C-alpha cells in the first residue's frame, strides 16, 4: 500500500466537527469537475490512491479516470462500501425488502416476487455478494487493489456477531475482482481479534488514529500495541481529529507510531495538499 492516500469526506459534505464547514464544502464541490480539479492536484503531487465512499458521483470520477488512461496511468481507487445513509434512509422510507429490490443490480430483484426477495435476505452471503457487485459496477475497468467495508457495516457485523461475513467478503472480493479486502472500523482491537479468529491474518484495516484518542474505541494503548505487534496493515484516518489537533503536532504523533502503514487525509486546496504531504514526508522518512 502507498503511504499517503487521499480521502473524500471534504467532497461530500462530511465534517465531523462542523455542520457549517460541511455545508460550505458541499457547496464548493457541487459538481464532479470541481472534485476532479482537487484530485488532479493530489495526483500531480504523487498521491495516487483515492479512498472513497461509493457515492453515485464517485462513479462519474471513475468514468473520467477510465476514459483517460494516458492522463491517469497509476490512479487507484480504494472503494469503501456501502454509503450507509443511502440504505438507512431507504430502509426508513420503504422498508428492508423494498430497499434490497431498489439497490440490487440490473433489475435482478425488480423482476422477483416478494417471497423470492425475502428468501435471498435469508442467505446473507448471497445478499452481500449481490450488494457488493452492485457497488462495484461503477469501478469496472479502473484499478481497485483494495476494497473496504465501511465502518458502520463492519462494526454492525462485529456487534451482531456475524463474524463469518468478513472472510466471505474477503473471498468474494479476491475471487471476483482480484482485490484485497479492507475493513474500516471504530473498534480496531476488537475487530482484529475477530478477523484473526476467522483466519484473516495481518488484515488491511483503517481506523481513527489520532493523538487525542478521538473515536478509538478500545483505547489508544490497545491501538498502539496492535500496531507495534504488526498484527494488521493499518491506515490511519482522522489523524487531525477533524481539526482538533494542530496539523504538525497531529502528523508528528501519528508518524511516530511503530507499525503504521499509511495515512489517509482529505484536503480541498492545493496548499493544504502540499502542506500535509510535506509534513508527513518530513515526520516519516522512508
Amino acid at each position, binding site marked *: 500500500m502507498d503511504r499517503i492516500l487521499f480521502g473524500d469526506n471534504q467532497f461530500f459534505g*462530511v465534517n465531523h*466537527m462542523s*455542520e457549517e464547514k460541511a455545508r460550505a464544502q458541499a457547496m464548493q464541490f457541487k459538481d464532479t469537475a470541481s472534485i476532479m480539479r482537487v484530485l488532479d492536484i493530489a495526483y500531480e503531487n504523487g498521491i495516487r490512491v483515492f479512498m472513497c465512499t461509493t457515492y453515485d458521483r464517485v462513479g462519474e470520477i471513475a468514468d473520467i479516470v477510465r476514459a483517460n488512461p494516458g492522463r491517469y496511468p497509476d490512479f487507484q481507487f480504494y472503494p469503501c462500501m456501502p454509503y450507509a445513509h443511502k440504505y438507512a434512509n431507504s430502509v426508513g422510507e420503504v422498508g428492508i425488502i423494498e430497499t434490497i429490490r431498489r439497490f440490487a443490480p440490473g433489475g435482478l430483484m425488480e423482476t422477483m416476487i416478494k417471497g423470492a426477495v425475502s428468501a435471498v435476505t435469508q442467505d446473507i452471503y448471497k445478499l452481500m455478494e449481490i450488494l457488493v457487485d452492485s457497488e462495484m459496477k461503477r469501478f469496472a475497468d479502473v484499478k481497485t487493489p483494495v476494497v473496504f467495508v465501511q465502518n458502520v457495516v463492519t462494526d454492525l457485523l462485529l456487534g*451482531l456477531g456475524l463474524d463469518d461475513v468478513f472472510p466471505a467478503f474477503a473471498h468474494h472480493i479476491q475471487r471476483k475482482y482480484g482485490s484485497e479486502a479492507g475493513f474500516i472500523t471504530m*473498534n480496531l482491537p476488537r475487530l482484529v481479534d475477530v478477523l484473526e479468529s476467522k483466519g484473516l491474518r495481518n488484515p488491511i484495516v483503517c481506523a481513527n488514529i489520532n493523538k487525542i484518542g478521538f473515536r478509538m*474505541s478500545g483505547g489508544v494503548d490497545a491501538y498502539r500495541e496492535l500496531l507495534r505487534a504488526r498484527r494488521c496493515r493499518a491506515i490511519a484516518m482522522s489523524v487531525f481529529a477533524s481539526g482538533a489537533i494542530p496539523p504538525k503536532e497531529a502528523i508528528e504523533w501519528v508518524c511516530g507510531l511503530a507499525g503504521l502503514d499509511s495515512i489517509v487525509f482529505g484536503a480541498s486546496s492545493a496548499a493544504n495538499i502540499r502542506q500535509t504531504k510535506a509534513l508527513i514526508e518530513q515526520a516519516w522518512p522512508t
Partner: protein
Amino acid sequence: MTRVGLIGAGKMGISHYAILGAHPRVKVVAVCDSMSYVTSALRKHTGIETFKDFRKMIETAELDAVFVATPTASHFEAASHALERGLHVFVEKPLCLDPAQSARLAELARQKGKANQVGYHNRFIGTFQETRRLVRGGAIGDVYHLSGSAFGQVVIRPKSGMTWRTSKSEGGGCLHDYASHVVDLMNFVVGVPRDVVAAQLRRIYSKDVEDAVYATFRYADGASGHLETNWSDASHRKMSTTIVLHGTRGKIVTDRQECRVFLREGTEFESYRPGWTVRYITDLQAPVAFYLRGEEYSAQIDAFIDAVEHGTAEHENSFASASETDWIIDLIQKAGQERS
C-alpha cells in the same frame, strides 16, 4: 450478566442489538419480530433464539430486561407487559402515542422499581449536555427565547408511504419521529413548556402524515420557544438537530458537533469569556467502549445497563421524563389539528 431480549428487529432494534452484543456484561438471548425474514436470518447466522410473540419470549427466555423497538403504537402493550413480569425496560422514542398511557407506564415502572429508559439519545451527546449545564448554571443569564430544529431526508418524494413511519395510526409522521427528539431536547435544556401556543402540521409529500412541524411554546417564566422540524429536506445528508438559546447575558448555538457560546461584555462563566467560545464534540464527548454510529447510542445503553445493575428506576431519560415529552407532542398535535 444481564440477559436481554429484543422486541422489534427493525433499524433501531438491530442497532441496539449490535451495541448490546458488544457489551461485556450483557447477553442478548432472544429476538422477537413479527416479520419472519429478519428473525430467521438472525437465527440462522447467529444461533439466537427467535420469537414472533413477545409474551412467549418473556415467558420462556429468562430475561432480565427487554428493548422495545417496535412501531410506537405497540409500545404500551409490550412495555407494560414486560414491567408487570418484573423486567427492566428500554423503549424507543417516543414512549407512547397517548400521553395517558405514557404516564401509566411511568407510574408502573416506579412501583416496580425497574430501570425504565427511552431512546432520546440527544441527552447523551456532549455538546447538548454542556449546553444544559451552561444554561442551568446561569451562564447566559435568564433565557427568554429558544428554538429547536431538525432537518433531514426521510420522505423526499410522493410515493414513500411503505413503512409504519408514514402511517399515523402506527405512530408515524414527522411529529412523532423528528419533532419528538427536538421537544425532548428542549425539555432537557430548559424544562417543560407550560403550553403550546400554536402549531402547524404540514404535509409536503406524505398522504397520511405530516412532513413538517412548526410550533410555538410558552414557558412558566415567560420565555418563548419555537420548534421547526422537516423530514423532507434533501439538503441534509442525515438528520441534523440544532438548539439556539437567547439569554439576557448571552447566547448559545449547539448542534451535535459544536457548542458555540456568546457571552456579553462583562460576563464570564468558568473558563468562558466575553465574545464567542466554541467547544467541539472532540473535547466534550466521553469515549465509549464500543462505537457503532455515534457515542450517544452506546452511552445511552451503558447508562441503562448501569441502572439495571444498580436496580434503580431513577435515571436519565426515564419514562417519567419521556411522558412529559409525549404530553407536549400531544398538545402540538391538538393545536395543529385545530388549525387545519
